[in-house]
């Protein structure tokens, strides 16, 4: 189990003094408008062992091609369907950059409401596979409480309903991809990361800041990106 100190580390994100120093001052600023839960809410919640990896995305780098969604659906379900992807890309083609696009991925929450809401244990922390929060499709009874719980804190819900095969689906960091011949999971590869043509998705083993978007929406642009004429700051 995670102790109190790890918990604080988790909501601050990563490790090390610099980040910890940033934590509380910055948190109080973001609580009001933050997506997800407030500091006060999190304090009352059940702790679970933190996932050993997290997906991070760069909203200003994404090119909107949906290849990540197609890869996710294909690797997991063996068919192509944007509605069956665990990562979702939203676009307003008429809006100006960067407000024209946002990606939403599962946060592998340190305090996962989806896990807490599941009445059958179908959605659980997989301690064998790096504590990834994932769905056991066999155990899922289709009550969709995980989706509703996630929807309460995330806009929109990251857990989704597979309406064709009737179970809840959520990101498992590609631990269970029957249609992809690569080893996934926290130590392995993720289909969305591998397929993204502009490297706008990556994984980290550092716990991102849990409150708000900042921990999960990061800058993945470097010098080579800038050389192509795109902003890197």
């Amino acid at each position: 189990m995670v102790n109190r100190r790890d918990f604080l580390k988790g909501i601050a994100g990563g490790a090390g003094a610099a980040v910890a120093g940033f934590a509380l001052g910055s948190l109080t600023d973001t609580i009001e408008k933050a997506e997800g839960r407030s500091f006060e809410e999190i304090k009352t919640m059940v702790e679970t062992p933190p996932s050993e990896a997290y997906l991070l995305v760069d909203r200003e780098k994404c090119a909107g091609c949906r290849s990540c969604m197609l890869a996710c659906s294909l690797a997991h379900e063996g068919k192509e369907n944007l509605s069956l992807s665990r990562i979702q890309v939203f676009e307003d083609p008429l809006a100006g950059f960067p407000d024209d696009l946002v990606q939403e991925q599962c946060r592998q929450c340190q305090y996962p409401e989806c896990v807490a809401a599941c009445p059958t244990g179908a959605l659980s922390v997989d301690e064998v596979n790096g504590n990834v929060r994932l769905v056991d499709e066999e155990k899922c009874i289709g009550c969709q409480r995980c989706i509703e719980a996630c929807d309460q804190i995330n806009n929109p819900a990251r857990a989704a309903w597979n309406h064709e095969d009737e179970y809840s689906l959520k990101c498992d960091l590609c631990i269970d991809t029957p249609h992809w011949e690569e080893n996934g999971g926290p130590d392995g590869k993720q289909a969305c990361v591998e397929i993204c043509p502009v490297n706008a998705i990556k994984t980290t083993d550092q716990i991102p800041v849990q409150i708000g978007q900042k921990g999960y929406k990061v800058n993945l642009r470097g010098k080579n990106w800038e050389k192509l004429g795109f902003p890197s700051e």
Partner: protein
Amino acid sequence: MKGHMGKILRLDLTNLNTKEINTSEYEEFVGGHGLGSAIFFDAVKDKTISAFHPDNVITMMTSPLCGTLAPATGRIELNGISPQPYPTEWYSRSNFGGRFSAMLKYAGYDGIVIEGKADKPTWINIVNEDVEFKDAESLWGLDAWETQEEIWTDVSGNSTSVDEREWYQTERGRDEGRTTQKPAVATIGAAGENKTRSGAIIHDAGNGAGNAAFGSVWGSKNLKAISVLGTKSVEVANPSALLKSREWAEDNYNNQESDPKPNWGSGVGAFGGVPGAEGFGNIAEEQVRPQGCVSCHRCTRKRTESGHGNESGCVDFLFYDVHDEQKHGGPTKETAKAGDLSQRYGINVYFLEEGINYLKHLHERGILGEGKEIEASLPWDELGNASFAKELIYKVSNKEGIGEDLAMGLPRAAKKWGRLEQDLNSGLLGLQYWGYPQHYDARTEVEWGYGSILGERDINEHDFNWVVYWQVSLAKLFGRNPPVKAEKLAKIIKDKTIPYNAVPNYSNEGIYSKNMAKLVAWHRHYTRFWKQSLQYCDWAYADFLNPYGPETRGITPEGETRFFNAVTGKDISFKEGMEIGRKIWNLDRSIWALQGRHRDQEEFAGYTYDVASWGPEISPHANYEVPYYMPVKEDGEWKYKNVASRSLDKEKFNEWKTKFYELEGWNTETGRPKRETLENLGLGKVADELEQKNKIE
């Protein structure tokens, strides 16, 4: 076949009802253009009707690859009788990218067939199997962007901002499926509503099917928009092979951000390239992102901080940037704003590009203007500002003033002004084939011109163009070596142009050779199947030379077959695909024959034969040639040579046509397919109809 959804939706606008076709009935044609031509052939009994006749049919066809991870397959093909070509309104094609094609499949359809004519403005709302004809009175008159915003809100019941992102369609119940995606809407603007001959179909910010004026056919049918939203799955035969192939393609044939390689001096290239290379954006010093159609691995377009020029590319801004630069000393946002106007009004930008140049010549010569021979009130002082573009686009789209003539298209307007023949002979009006603006020059880069005149429009297919002209000429201009020596290029092209194995010999003799007939035949068959039927994008395929590829070799033909077989579960060879292309090409050729096509009509505009180089003779100081380096084989040696300042020899071109017809199995007197040829392709039914109409010898 896997990858197909199994159904094609027929929309009968006259009776406001729908029917379905089982895709399997037409499976031999696979997708896109092939499906479109086969369905058109059956659905339109009299092929000689005009484009605006209610019986004209517009098909919109996806392919088994659309909506899958097969790279750069985000387009949808449109076919039907087009009001744009001159003098005959040929059966033609156009396509556009974005999300529409994928979304149509997720809604459960491989394509849409638009038939009849509604008696009042109508839009179609498709959400999975629910298809609704909706009153479009309140949308008629809105521009293409406003229309989409209205429909997005109507269908999603939600704001269109990404900040209010949500799962839509929750009210339909969980087993129907939900989506976070906006409906994909294809719509027309004023240019289409008012039945000009330049109306485009627009989707999202910058996807357009312009160069066949099918938007105007929609207008004639009172069809304002089609919206699709779907939550169904595309079945893939071999998912792991598809994923593996995609990774193979990206790893071996595309730019790696971590290890960028020289780009051969050009943002373009075929399969491999850097993101955002072709969209408008940072030329005007704006912050931008690259943007791609569904499944794209290159994402060559852009979205900008101001939103001006979003997703526009190529001629969307090139029709105006020269004027902007002349006005302001460099490119500004005015170019992007002009591009936006072309999207909003839904007007063909190739028409605008050549149109502005032509009008400017006539104006400067004192022929066109207020109180002049051709009466026209246009704010010439504003040329280079978006306001000029707006005035012109508005007038054409609404048929006001000079716009009334221009709405007929350039060839028909010039004819009305009594100028067509003289201006085509001098080259002042650069309409080289079927009234389409010269894109690449039939005199130098013959495969482009030959393909266009043997077809029905500016082919706009860059397969050979990058490697035989652009990369070479640029290198020569800048004192560098072309990417590969001419001999190696010839060998690569010979290896890859299965089964004809043609070489790119653009010498003065080579352009009239049997080899060139093979090269053009390969091009016609390749594009008809692999690109226009499967929807492999022109900005990625064919890939002959690739800076990132093994030994600089491109992904063609391996890539095309690999992705196709992974999705469909078929095991076809590249050659078998080429044969389907030949079949579709012959079907098109038969439709044109039924429309009255004869070999004698297949002639370029006069200047092609009479004027060397790129004309026109504006002044003695304008009469020089731009360097046009191409591979040639002379005296047994391959080299790159400047072939500018060449005009075509009409007699030799006609001898070449005979060689081409022979190669294709067509009658050399008429240029029409022979019965034997059609029967061997399984098109006996087509031969019967030709015979019935006395179009077969």
